């Protein structure tokens, strides 16, 4: 004969969760193959390499989470709309025959990429208490939605009769053609906190890019960018994502909608 307690335990072994998360992310671009429009004939070609900056621009994401829980393990699908940002710059110097004559230009580019992410995760919860730490692993596929580049040119001109330091207003251009869909792996952790009939969740995940985010066929397709000397490198991107949210159970213990332990 089944006891009430064992029936409850069996019930609590299995649950569906549906909820919403949102948060911020930081990105780290990793160039795989470098390209440049500028081809020097009297200085080192390495000077045309872009200098990438990591984890310096905050992006954001919003996630719909659907999780199936069974005995501490969960399978979770978390479709996400994500905006990621990172920056890089090039610096060039031209010098002349007259003493001190020269021009230094710095091209700073801010890249913004919008993706629809499709992550699939396996989670493991370490306890059955109200506060439940968990780890999660999985993979994601990112579908490119939009991309823009903002270019700011600054520099020092001491070839026009004096020293002139300037910084132009950024020019933002569409850059969707330069990028494509990509995929990666996810590792992370967090805590669930059961509050009444609702589960609050905080998680941190690291997205490790496994494929090139650049569209190799359109590297030079954007006249506006190639016109200022910019060619898209082959890139992988890693992301550090922080999210908070709340989840709602879809199975209930009794008519008073009690669903949690």
């Amino acid at each position, binding site marked *: 004969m089944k006891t009430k307690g064992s029936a409850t335990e069996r019930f609590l072994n299995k649950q569906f969760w549906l909820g919403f998360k949102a948060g911020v992310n930081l990105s780290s671009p990793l160039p795989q193959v470098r390209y440049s429009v500028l081809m020097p004939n009297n200085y080192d070609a390495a000077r045309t390499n872009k200098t990438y900056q990591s984890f310096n621009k905050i992006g954001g994401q919003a996630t719909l989470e659907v999780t199936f829980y069974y005995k501490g393990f969960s399978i979770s699908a978390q479709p996400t709309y994500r905006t990621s940002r990172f920056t890089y710059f090039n610096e060039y110097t031209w010098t*002349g025959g007259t003493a001190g004559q*020269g021009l230094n230009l710095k091209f700073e580019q801010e890249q913004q990429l919008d993706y629809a992410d499709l992550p*699939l995760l396996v989670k493991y919860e370490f306890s059955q208490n109200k506060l439940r730490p968990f780890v999660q692993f999985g993979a994601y596929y990112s579908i490119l939605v939009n991309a823009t580049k903002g270019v700011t040119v600054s520099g020092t001109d001491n070839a026009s009769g004096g020293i002139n330091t300037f910084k132009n207003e950024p020019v933002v251009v569409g850059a969707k053609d330069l990028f494509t869909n*990509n995929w990666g792996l996810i590792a992370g952790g967090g805590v669930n906190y059961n509050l009444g009939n609702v589960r609050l969740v905080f998680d941190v995940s690291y997205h490790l890019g496994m494929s090139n985010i650049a569209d190799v066929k359109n590297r030079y397709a954007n006249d506006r960018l190639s*016109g200022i000397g910019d060619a898209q490198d082959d890139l992988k991107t890693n992301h550090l994502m922080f999210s908070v949210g709340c989840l709602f159970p879809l199975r209930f213990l009794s008519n008073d909608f009690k669903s949690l332990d």
Partner: protein
Amino acid sequence: MKKLITLLFFSLGMIILSSCANEADPEADKRFFTKFYDNSNFNIAYTPLDVAQTSDGGYLVLGLKTVIVPDGGDVEPPVIYIMKTDEFGNFISDLDVPEGLRMPAPALLKVDGKFYFFCQTVNNSQSIQLMEVSEAGTIAQQVDIGGTYPLAAGVDGSSLLLLNLDLEGRQTIMSKVSTSGDILNAKGFNIGAADGGPYAPESAALEHVQRTGPQLPFYVGKTTNNLYYFNGIYNYSLSTVFTDLIADNPIGVVQGSNNKGGLSALLSLNGGKFATSRFNYGDNYILPAAALSINSPTKSSELGGNPFPELSPNATVRIINIKIDETDRVIYGSNTRGKQIALFGYNPADGTLAGSRYIGFSNSFELASLTPTADNGLLVLGTTYIAGRFPRICLFKLSAEALGKSFQ
């Protein structure tokens, strides 16, 4: 539930596998690229003239290099500059042709897999030289062929065509030259009596070849009916002259207006038609399927055509024909007032516009030449002004796919 999870994992696996195909694609990088060839010296200016593809898939660029002397001094014609790139457009090597050779005709000629250009000695005696360039971008051979001031050059089968100015004899001379430097045929045409005026066309031609004045649209070629033609100074104006290189007088002439009007480019099409363009006191007109009367004198100003106010005054125009997916297209290249390079594609059968494409943004760009490539792409050679001020060679390779999108 198990089925749903299996389906989710299977779907994610499939899309991940499909995205793995986006790895580095060297073939795509060969088919489509943009390159600016930079020098960190503030006082060096480059002027590209022409480009040709080598058998290794790379490219040879013929150009000029000017060292700007900050404190002035004598103005000398620029040094001839040859640059070699690989098939990706990456810089490999360059060469400043020795000092005594200057004033190249702006054409790098490919005949039987070898590369040639004409230039002139400037030290002790003035004489036109035929230069052979190796695939690596070095001078392989130099032959003295005589004459002065090379203006334009072209290819006629396995021979070369040369247009030059003979100021002493007051002639514009068109020659057919073998690749070993022998003059196979030549005919001179009178540029008109000297009147000592300050705007004489021959003065403009001299300033053109010495690069001390505006560049004039000199060219040579051969019609599909095996008649030769050139655009040069004839009868005291910039004129397109049709000749068989036998008769003393031209077979036909399209007369310009001094050096202020005339044809700016010409390409012979099947059926006796021509793709051409003309300029007239700054205005530009395109005639993609013109029926020129080559057996009688005509005036360029009476040819009509589509006005192109977007082009820069007296714009440089280049015309080539290419096949895009087995479809014939005539491509016009020119410079816009907005400092872009404009490409217009026309159907040679009826002269209708098939499409257009504009190259360049932010920096200024000026067209030098259009050259088809072995993979049915198109090379657009030009000058860009890096940082808005440094004239540098730029090379755009447009893929066959990109041409199809723009001009089919």
